């Protein structure tokens, strides 16, 4: 059985859920081999073993974290050349997609992004044109390189050895051309990552102001959810741009997407249409988002959302 390389998405060894989803998918396609680049492997080892990594390639050179994207491309390219894997899976994050794209160019392969499923033979399912069309694609020359959207598979534990193998690469001058000199973190509290969250609560024009987003945040915190925003809300400066859901923003696919005060233009639907359950609150009964809602309430979000927040707290208590 050929190895399937899975690039581990982590922050100092804290492994993101999407990695466990990728390991689960990789088991269908071959033998999962995790690729851990960066510091903190000791924190990651046991969860990678629990979710089925037969092998883990560890590239821990501190230099690898100093440059944009290219060092991870160098690590994966060297593994692709030496190990001839059956394929490479990466998360469909901004970094994951760029690593995949550069890797495809470097090793002379094809790349597919934003898969929502990967089946036998690396046939990839994608949801395109704002969720309107389902496409089955495949890579037909070179090793298949595929990025998968978070929440595309339920992580399943399947204990394996996680046999560790150190990898070191020599970075070229081009790999070191874009140097990261500072990391600036914005306050996001304890909320989960928007892209990975199982529940997302989003606010739009109907929220009315930046201060009023407290109503959205309160519900999100009661549900353990991430907060999202429509473009109208981020353009108005009510909520930071990196939380924008939709075309030109984030694409999310949570178990529950709850939209408050968002009318649901195609640009917004493109970023959330594949959510499992959609709940909509809007005072305009004609809002297009009601057309794809599993449950909707026509009403004032400033009444409905706080009441829901209290109800969630009561029922969770």
């Amino acid at each position: 059985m050929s190895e399937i390389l899975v690039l581990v998405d982590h922050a100092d060894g804290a492994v993101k859920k999407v990695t466990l989803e990728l390991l689960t998918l990789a088991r269908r396609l071959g033998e999962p081999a995790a690729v851990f680049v960066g510091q903190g492997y000791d924190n990651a080892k046991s969860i990678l073993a629990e979710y089925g990594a037969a092998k883990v390639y560890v590239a821990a050179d501190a230099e690898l974290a100093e440059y944009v994207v290219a060092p991870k491309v160098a690590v994966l390219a060297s593994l692709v050349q030496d190990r001839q894997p059956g394929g490479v899976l990466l998360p469909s994050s901004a970094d994951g997609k760029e690593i995949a794209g550069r890797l495809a160019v470097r090793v002379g392969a094809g790349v597919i992004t934003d898969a929502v499923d990967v089946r036998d033979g690396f046939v990839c399912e994608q949801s395109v044109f704002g969720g309107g069309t389902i496409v089955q694609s495949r890579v037909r020359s070179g090793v298949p390189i595929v990025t998968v959207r978070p929440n595309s598979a339920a992580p399943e534990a399947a204990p394996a050895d996680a046999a560790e193998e150190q990898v070191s690469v020599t970075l070229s001058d081009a790999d070191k051309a874009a140097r990261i000199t500072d990391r600036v973190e914005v306050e996001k509290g304890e909320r989960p990552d928007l892209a990975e969250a199982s529940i997302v609560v989003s606010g739009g024009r109907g929220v009315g102001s930046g201060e009023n987003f407290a109503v959205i945040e309160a519900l999100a915190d009661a549900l353990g959810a991430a907060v999202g925003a429509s473009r109208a809300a981020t353009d108005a400066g009510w909520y930071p741009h990196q939380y924008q859901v939709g075309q030109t923003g984030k694409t999310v696919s949570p178990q529950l997407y709850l939209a408050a005060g968002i009318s649901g233009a195609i640009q917004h639907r493109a970023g959330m249409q594949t959510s499992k359950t959609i709940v909509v609150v809007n005072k305009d009964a004609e809002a297009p988002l009601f057309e794809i809602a599993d449950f909707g309430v026509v009403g004032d979000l400033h009444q409905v959302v706080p009441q829901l927040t209290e109800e969630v707290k009561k029922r969770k208590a």
Partner: protein
Amino acid sequence: MNIVVCVKQVPDTYSERRLDPGDKTLDRASADGVINELDEYAIEESLKLAEATGGTVTVLTMGPEKATESIRKALSMGADKAVHVLDDSLHGADAVQTSAALAAALDKVGFDLVVLGSESTDARMSVVPAMLAERLGLPQLTYASKVEVDGSAITVQRQAEYGYDKVEATLPAVVSVVEKINEPRYPSFKGIMAAKKKEVANFGVGDLGLAEADLGLAGAATEVVEFTPAPPREKGVVVTDEGDGGVKIADYLASQKIL
């Protein structure tokens, strides 16, 4: 500073977008073509940088004849001239092939800085800027929400989940921008008139030295096996709030075992 801004003509998000049942590529005839939205931010940033440094802005696009509409839009915003990679044998190119053609065109045109939008609204892959950096062996300064050039030094803020990274490099470089970066200008009447007289050079695959076997659908490393319209979501229940809307949602979530 010699800036090249890459633009793409895409089907309007508001029109019905579909794939051609014959060769399974984008059906460009069925939808209105518009310039990719984020590319307008790339043009704006290029114009600002050129204005600040006394440089020129060249528009580069690859696409069918119809894509000249998007070139004209960029020229009417203020870009100086344009290069159109136009060749029927490129039809059906995937991202790997597109980046090869654009890299070849960039080599031929020459530049200090390449600027792109970080995503197209049709394919939404967000890989071409990174692929260009890879092919050209240049710094990748992508997802920029701020760009500063000082002589040959360039610094950007690279937007990330947690905030941003500050990234430094030396020109030449490849930059992609997010919409937070600026507010694109509207073409003025004078700009629209002037655009009609600006130079547009056409490059074919022969001019770019691209190998025939690598071109178009036949040379693509990826293929669409099949496609189907997504099944419509089942129409859900919509109720009017009578003072208990929040409770009703909680009941619904409980019935779905979400709560």
